[in-house]
């Protein structure tokens, strides 16, 4: 899932001061799951803002949609958004932008910082796992991502800085390639580690689009 953290309160407060009616929009998917932007966070943020500005100084509304990255769910806000002069989005960066795109005449302010694509370790505890590099090498690396875990994002490693099990940047930072070596050795396919992965095409880091197989014709028909 996409993991986000709430912004410092003052930053949010400064963004919305000066407006009269503000709608805080939560997202019921990734940011709800990672406890940053679901309906409870919406209610809590509104209460904090009410306390900071003084009750009734600014009117804060609350809505949480299923996903802010789907236009159909944002459409549910169409009638409502008109009543407000600014919007706060508690979704990830994608959701915030899509909300802003849906309501181009309204200022849209982010209430969370989008952190990474990660996994849940325990309630409220997450770890980054994927950098969305666009060239997945997990099949060669025993299911451990060197782009995320290695400080140099090396496709072919380790580098000279590997130190026992750790990375040279910090002894608490595991060396990705040490872990990959261990995993591959455990699966009896260590031979793969010497296969050279060609460098990632980092030019793919421009804004990307994905069209799933079978949907190309549909997209073409839409003329976009």
């Amino acid at each position, binding site marked *: 899932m996409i993991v986000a953290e709430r912004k410092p*309160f003052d930053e949010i407060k400064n963004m919305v001061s000066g407006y009269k009616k503000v709608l805080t929009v939560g997202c019921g998917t990734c940011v709800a799951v990672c406890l940053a932007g679901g*309906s409870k966070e919406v209610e809590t943020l509104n209460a904090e803002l*009410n306390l900071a500005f003084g*009750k009734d100084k600014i009117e804060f509304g609350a809505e*949480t949609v299923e996903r802010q990255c789907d236009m159909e769910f944002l459409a549910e806000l169409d009638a409502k958004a008109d009543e407000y002069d600014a919007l706060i989005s508690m979704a990830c960066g994608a959701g915030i932008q899509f909300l802003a795109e849906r309501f181009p005449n309204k200022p849209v302010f982010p209430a969370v910082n989008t952190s990474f694509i990660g996994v849940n370790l325990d309630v409220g505890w997450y770890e980054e796992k994927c950098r969305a590099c666009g060239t997945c090498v997990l099949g060669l690396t025993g299911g451990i991502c060197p782009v995320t875990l290695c400080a140099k994002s090396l496709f072919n490693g380790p580098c000279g800085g590997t130190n026992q099990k750790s990375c040279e940047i910090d002894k608490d930072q595991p060396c990705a390639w040490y872990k990959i070596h261990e995993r591959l050795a455990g699966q009896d396919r260590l031979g793969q580690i010497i296969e050279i992965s060609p460098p990632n095409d980092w030019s793919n880091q421009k804004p990307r689009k994905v069209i799933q197989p079978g949907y190309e014709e549909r997209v073409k028909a839409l003329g976009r």
Partner: protein
Amino acid sequence: MAETTDMIEVTINKDVLVIGCGAQGLESAEAVAAKGYKVVLVDDGDVPAPASADIEVMANTTVESLAGMTGDFRTCLANGSGRSDRTFGAIVVAPKYGLAPLNEAYGLALDDKVVSMTQMEALLGDAAFKKTLGQGEGKTIAFVSGFGQEGDPAATSRVLEAALTVQKLGNARAYIYANNVKVGARGLERLFTLGRNEGVVCFKPLEKPAIEQGDTLKIVINDPVVREDVALEPDYIVVEEEVVVGRANLDLAETLRIDTDLDGFIPSNNVHRFPANSNREGIFVASTLEDAPNVALRVADLLASGVKSVAANAAVVDETKCTICLTCYRCCPHGAIFWENGIAAISPVACQGCGICASECPMDAIQIGDFTDDALKADIEGAVASVSGTPSIVAFCCQNSALEAGEAAKAFDTELPQGFRMIQVPCAGKVDVEFIMKAFVEGADGVMVAACHEGNCKAERGSTFAKWRVEEIRKRLETIGLSKDRLIFTTIASNMAEEFSMKVRMFAEKL
């Protein structure tokens, strides 16, 4: 509050799984079978044949996984011949703990003269050995206990039994060096007196005995009664043993998702529960032989005739809001939550209504019985609105402790600030971040979250969750520019009326 509660009937599987065939496991299996339930008895080792023919036995079998809920526990039992999926209404755990000698605590190495309690018990069961103890001048056996660890009645009982056996041989002598002679169990005081009457000598030195282990053994203590050093050269020294939980029990607790106590023993301690109950309804623990009949009673109470009538609204999940983030599943202290058909599902049989899940749910998708979000928000509005003058204090009071203390404080006419209002919650764990913030937004000057003392929470971790939330909101109040001291967390017992009103008065003074 709702005036009537809709009840629903839940079908409960009537088979019972008993894990562990130690004496208390066998006894529990027999007692449950005697109540008319089908019992499957499994053990990771051999299983002796039970007396009752109604007990199905599976030796060398482990519980590989557990899914489902109280009344419908779905297990995977694994042994050499494969895996089988079996469903049970209730599970009884009879943990078998190991023993480890504490000779190192006394600076001793085990040999043929320095032996563990278990070894001595075995020796005393051997007629030839017993004969040697009485030969010639007779042998002297010293038992050391309670210095390697704090003693307990079970350990004391073994020492007293063995010492009495030795002394009764006639021509052998038993000495006990004990820190504390723990006789707080049935028959132990009698056993102790019996031994003394037979001539067992008990020393209660203030410090651990100094022991020399050479060609001969020598124990020196300073006897606090005669205030002199007393030396003894025994033929045998028997060292106490500690109980070792062992990986197998910890793994089992993890598989069954039941809590252990701080030392790893099953179940965790909770004064609000019957001793035979674990934190999960339907999973019972027989730690001793005495637990067996209690376990059978609890099992029969749950399974009854296979149908259980429970409140329909104990905890209700709104399927349009739930995102199955699993927060509730992970936070539930009673293992009452799972997921099916794309949403979180809360077992009405297993749910204890604490409301921790509802307060942690990021989508406010869970409503608890009489304590729905709407009802509590109305309570908060009412509480603040009813106050004239300052300071107005909203106290969220756990109904298991603080609410009782508060009601008593009122009944005893202890002085409480005029603007003090209590809001009943099923557990401090039900006090949502939103509720506290709402109280401030509505105009409360101070908010108090009053929970049970640490380690005394009926819902195991409700107080802990409440404390964490208060700490977090205090930080947030500061960033908003309000005093963090407008919010406090406090713990109180139900009988502490005077202390409760004092805490409230002190809080009011600071506001």
